């Protein structure tokens, strides 16, 4: 267990897709050998590169335990959070490939432009809309609260949206994360504007672009059943909301 007992370190090769917008016309791959422990995270590996070998390596990170959503990246071809991916869970007999998430404009190394992602989020009206003015709290049963629990877990890391083949080919598609945000309010018993969001998502670039490939569910670091949430929004668009 990491620093708790004595654990041997070993060398891991990271192959990182680099891009410096000020000097490079195209991204390129670069190798780094790093001494790691099995309980280290990929984020620790990136830090060791940045702190000991090449300070120009650029990536976002903050909380380092999977709650802030800063460090979604493609690790061995899968979208994951670098701070939630432990070395022991990777096959380190081979190099570990790390690159930026796909489908958003590449800014530098592992950093992409998140603005299109947040723009889609804002479009689904991700906030409670109600005419009720309770003196205290709105009442909500345990079951009503449970109905949308899964989609409240979203940390807006973009791992789902940027794992979606439809999003890669059609940047106009709202993408899974925005639909998750809509789901969270469509199925909240306190909200009165589910239909507005369903109309937005019933459009050309809405839920019907989803091809149910389940990449999004596999990518979600919070374990949200994203594809299921999208299906429920599709159902609601046809049959109306059942809370």
């Amino acid at each position, binding site marked *: 267990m990491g620093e708790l007992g004595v654990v041997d370190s070993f060398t891991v090769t990271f192959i990182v897709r680099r891009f410096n917008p000020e000097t490079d016309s195209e991204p390129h791959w670069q190798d780094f050998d790093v001494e790691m422990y099995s309980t280290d995270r990929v984020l620790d590996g990136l830090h060791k590169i*940045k702190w000991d070998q090449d*300070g120009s390596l650029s990536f976002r990170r*903050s909380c380092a335990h999977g709650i802030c959503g*800063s460090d979604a990246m493609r690790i061995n071809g899968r979208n994951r959070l670098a701070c939630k991916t*432990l070395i022991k869970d990777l096959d380190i007999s081979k190099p570990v490939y790390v690159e930026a998430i796909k489908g958003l404009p590449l800014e530098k190394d592992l950093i992409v432009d998140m603005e299109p992602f947040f723009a889609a989020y804002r479009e689904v009206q991700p*906030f*409670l809309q109600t005419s009720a003015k309770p003196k205290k*709290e709105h009442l909500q*049963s345990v079951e009503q609260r449970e109905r949308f629990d899964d989609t409240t877990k979203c940390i807006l890391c973009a791992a789902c949206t940027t794992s979606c083949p439809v999003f890669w080919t059609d940047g106009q598609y709202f993408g899974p994360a925005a639909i998750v945000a809509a789901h969270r309010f469509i199925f909240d018993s306190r909200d009165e504007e589910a239909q507005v969001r369903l109309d937005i998502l019933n459009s050309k670039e809405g839920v019907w672009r989803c091809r149910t490939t389940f990449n999004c569910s596999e990518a979600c670091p919070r*374990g949200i059943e994203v594809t299921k949430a999208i299906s429920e929004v599709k159902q609601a668009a046809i049959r109306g909301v059942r809370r």
Partner: protein
Amino acid sequence: MTTVHHHEYDVVIVGAGGAGMRAAIESAPNVKTAVISKLYPTRSHTGAAQGGMAAALANVEEDSWEWHTFDTVKGGDYLVDQDAAEILAREAIDAVLDLENMGLPFNRTPDGKIDQRRFGGHTRDHGKAPVRRSCYAADRTGHMILQTLFQNCVKLGVEFYNEFYVLDLLLTDVKGKSTAAGVVAYELSTGDIHVFNATSVIFATGGFGKMYKTTSNAHTLTGDGVGIAWRKGIPLEDMEFFQFHPTGLAGLGILLTEGARGEGAILRNASGVRFMERYAPTIKDLAPRDIISRCMVQEVAEGRGAGPNKDYVLLDCTHLGAEVLETKLPDITEFARTYLGVDPVVEPVPVMPTAHYAMGGIPTTVNAEVLLDNTTVIPGLYAAGECACVSVHGSNRLGTNSLLDINVFGKRAGKNAAAYAKKAKLPALPKAAEQFVVDLIDSARTANGKESVASIRKELQVEMDRNAQVFRTEKSLGHAQKVIHDLRVRYAKIGIHDRGQRFNTDLLEAVELGFLLDLAEVVVVSARNRKESRGGHMRDDFPDRDDKGYMQHTMAYKKGDDIALGWKPVVITNYPPMERKY
């Protein structure tokens, strides 16, 4: 050549965590408001808070805000300003209802109200027994607060400047008074400089836990806002009081909520003994954090630690059952599984104290106005949240009082900043307003010395863990002060690799380290000066509380390269200091 942009706002809020966004929700609908953050708002560390937000709603059992006030005062070992604690506890009820009305999905009682659970130091009728006061959403209450506030900012169309790093506070002389005039920020994506001329400025920049190695804090919590205030001659209050949360994942520092003990989890030593029964017979594992952390360190020091190196204790949740863990504590259950490979459902989790929260910070009035000394307000300047010291936490904050603090005082800061901006004139900018930041960035970008930022930071963190953590002595603090001094000398000779303009996070880390070094020195110097033990500040060489000598707030002032220390009286209203027993 550096590109400089100019902006004008009524209110500029620095920091987009809970306090900053709560302030924005008050300010933005009324006056032209900007929120500036070095992160995207949803990355802020409010999102990592887990257990809950205290408010005497009395939804599940009898409670009163007066009991909450008392617990806050006693929890802070009587260094709390009691008028501020009263405001905190009284306004807590509306603060929780505000959030629910904004959409926050709290857990519910069987009759559909907001559910509440127990938390450390929160008691019924002045200490008689634990009370259910913490309003919660599983063990992701902070996440829900951050998301809900962000959602409401989206609803209101709040203007955000994301990934803009504020590096200077502009103060100007208006009628003989040092007055806020704006801030200067460095845009991470381009390297451009932005001057924000504003009538009101709110600092809501969070804490500085990254001066410690073992910490629950994010990499980005480097005390930038507090450090800027310090460099501008604003004093810092009670900096020696840093909270070490008892249950960090051993070796990693990742937070496991106190809510686990609120739900009934028990701390055990290597022999399986529930050691808190010995130290706090009435409320045991729900004693305040400072007490529990000390007891844990003591258990380990006396050879009763668990594990191959006997260097941690165990948090036993196994008797809670899988359902409670999966529904009320799902995130921490997953953290233990992911990062330690330990399943809390079937085995106890290795834990040790982790640097968690700064009780001290920028001194403010109860209206969130920043103080230049014990009484003088800086017109137009406000602070709220962890970066501020009101002081509602005194020498030790109670769990669930920080999510409360950001909401109550974030709201007050936003309201008051907007009201001030409506009546005051936009102050003229000082001459060459951007120059300090232009020079700071240029010298960092071109730094070509031999010293490494990462090495200096690591040595600082190791030293702070070793000599300025749960137990302190004159000797340990003296050592820390010397080490920090040497590190500062080396910091002047750093080199960085990245010479680029765009997303230069190498440069960013170098600048952040400067703030950490400044603040670590203030923490250690303030701690050396307080020769007593109180709340989160435990001196092995002065083990007792000394109300005659030290029943007052520390005020640290920057005097050139030196630190001058003064005192500020504690506001006492209803609760004369008593011995603190649980």
